[in-house]
């Protein structure tokens, strides 16, 4: 076969290799997943463009509170606590969003709040949304879950500002 064919093939191979690399990088760009960090302020400046009311109220709800693929009740969103803050203990200062499905607290790596606390159990407690607001439930931990001096035995409703203690960690629901 002619020399031209070989040259075309040889350069074509280099082009194809690079096209493959570029295709892979293209897929990488469209394949971002995991967590997305959005500045809160991003939604606010759009106020000057008129928008349908429903759309606007959805945008004002913080993204952390919006479960994927489900509508949020805009009325309760303004009053309900939406995150959990660690007040004291090894993780003091940490805060994480509450999820309606419930978040698990304990030393096990599967928990939403992984306690580095020798006095906490693997699956220590759960905070979830009951029919009348947020509820904390002890999951049979060794050292117990406390609100004030009282050790929890059943699922107990909590409001924003109530201090809940697991081992040496104290957390609080925040708005």
């Amino acid at each position, binding site marked *: 076969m002619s020399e031209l064919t*070989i040259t075309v*093939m040889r350069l*074509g191979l280099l082009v194809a290799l690079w*096209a493959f690399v570029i*295709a892979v990088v293209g*897929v990488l760009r469209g*394949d971002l997943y995991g967590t997305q*960090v959005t500045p809160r302020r991003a939604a606010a400046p759009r106020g000057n463009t008129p928008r349908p009311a429903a759309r606007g109220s959805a945008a004002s709800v913080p993204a*952390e509170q919006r479960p994927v693929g489900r509508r949020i009740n805009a009325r309760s969103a303004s009053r309900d606590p939406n995150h959990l803050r660690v007040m004291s203990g090894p993780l003091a200062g940490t805060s994480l*969003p509450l999820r309606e499905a419930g978040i698990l607290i304990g030393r096990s790596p599967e928990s939403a709040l992984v306690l580095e606390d020798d006095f906490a159990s693997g699956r220590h407690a759960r905070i979830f949304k009951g029919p009348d607001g947020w509820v904390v439930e002890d999951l049979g931990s060794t050292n117990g879950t406390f609100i004030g001096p009282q050790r929890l035995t059943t699922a107990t409703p909590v409001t924003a500002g109530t201090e809940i203690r697991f081992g040496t960690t104290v957390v609080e629901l925040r708005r």
Partner: protein
Amino acid sequence: MTTVSALSSRKGRNVELGLLVFAVAIVALAYINVGVAVEGAVPPSLVAVGTGFLVITAAFHITMRLRAPYADPLILPIATLLNGLGLVMINRLDLANDRSLAEGMALRQLMWSALAAGLAIAALIILRDHRILRRYTYLAGAIGFGLLLLPLVPGLGVENYGSRIWIAVGPFSFQPGEIAKIVLAVFFAGYLVQTRDALSVAGRRILGLTLPRARDLGPILVAWMLSVGVLVLEKDLGSSLLFFGLFVAMLYIATERTSWVAIGLLLFGVGCWVANLLFSHVQRRVLLWLDTFSREALDTSDQLARGLMGMASGGMLGTGLGRGRPELTYFAESDFIIPSFGEEIGLIGLFALLLLYVLLVERGLRTAIGARDGFGKLLAAGLAFSVALQCFVVVGGVTRVIPLTGLTMPFLSQGGSSLLANWTLVALLLRISDHARRPVPDPAAPNPVASEETQVVKVR
């Protein structure tokens, strides 16, 4: 103030299919290119070899659709392309050395690829969840160290070209160090998940580094002694560096403490320096590295020099597949496959190959970030890092960045044990990434079984 929200990923199986077709097409183009350039016609074996390659790829892809639908769509196409290009280059060297297809290395490499892909498919089917591996942490440790030291067993180990890293059972020879890499990654991941709290507790802070307590130095010293043992007894710098580097990197990932890296580098530096003083085979490697073109070095071995000359003659665009003389270098199909590619597809092509490795490693590390359990994170990061380190050692060795050591380029080099190990590694990464990218089941969603009414059944 910022908010954090979870984004779920798309499955990407169709993307994978598209890229796989692209990869197979590139391999076919390269194969035809070799045939045309060497023999002047489209090689008659294209149909047979191409069908074999296509069947392996298709089988793997179908397994992915059935068993790991959420796995990363990029890992498999990249590995397939690299494996295919390796096959093309080995076939090209067969032609240059006048070996027919039946007796050549390319067909054997294709069979090993099929076997390796089969093993990876089996691993994906059998291993439904990578966390099962954590149960076998200490067994993996024992097997890993056993495999690493197996070539030292008299009667089993064989010394080839100065390194005692092979074992021979009957007609089969095998490099257990390649498999040990994966098994040890499992062990390190399981071990460090348990002990990382102890290893990352506050120590004394000196010169901006938080140094660990003396009693926590145990594991790193054991790993160091073993790697020095491999270096001294098996005379293999490559496996020793790979093994120790893997441990230090995983230790760093597990504890987030830079001091471990500093201690590791220091220990490794001391080990190398002492080895250079004491052992002649290390001195020879250093001489070849620093004065490659001196008379003394060329009398010892001109392999490195020939590889460099080959790459130089390839230049920017390369001579074209089939038009260079890569067969002049010894081990052009295994340790020196990178110079072979450098000569024939040039710097531009070689950089595309290296980028493919970078992307493969990136996908592994991305999997580690996405993984939700500590063991999976460490395992994925360790496996990805081992690929990166191995590429660095091989490419650095043939380009005179570091002394040349005998490691194989993952997927590209000729060699059955290397293919088996690297395809298994890919299967593990795919399994972890499938788990990492699977959407979290929503506990609030009604469970179809729970919502069923309980039925009263009469027992008698």
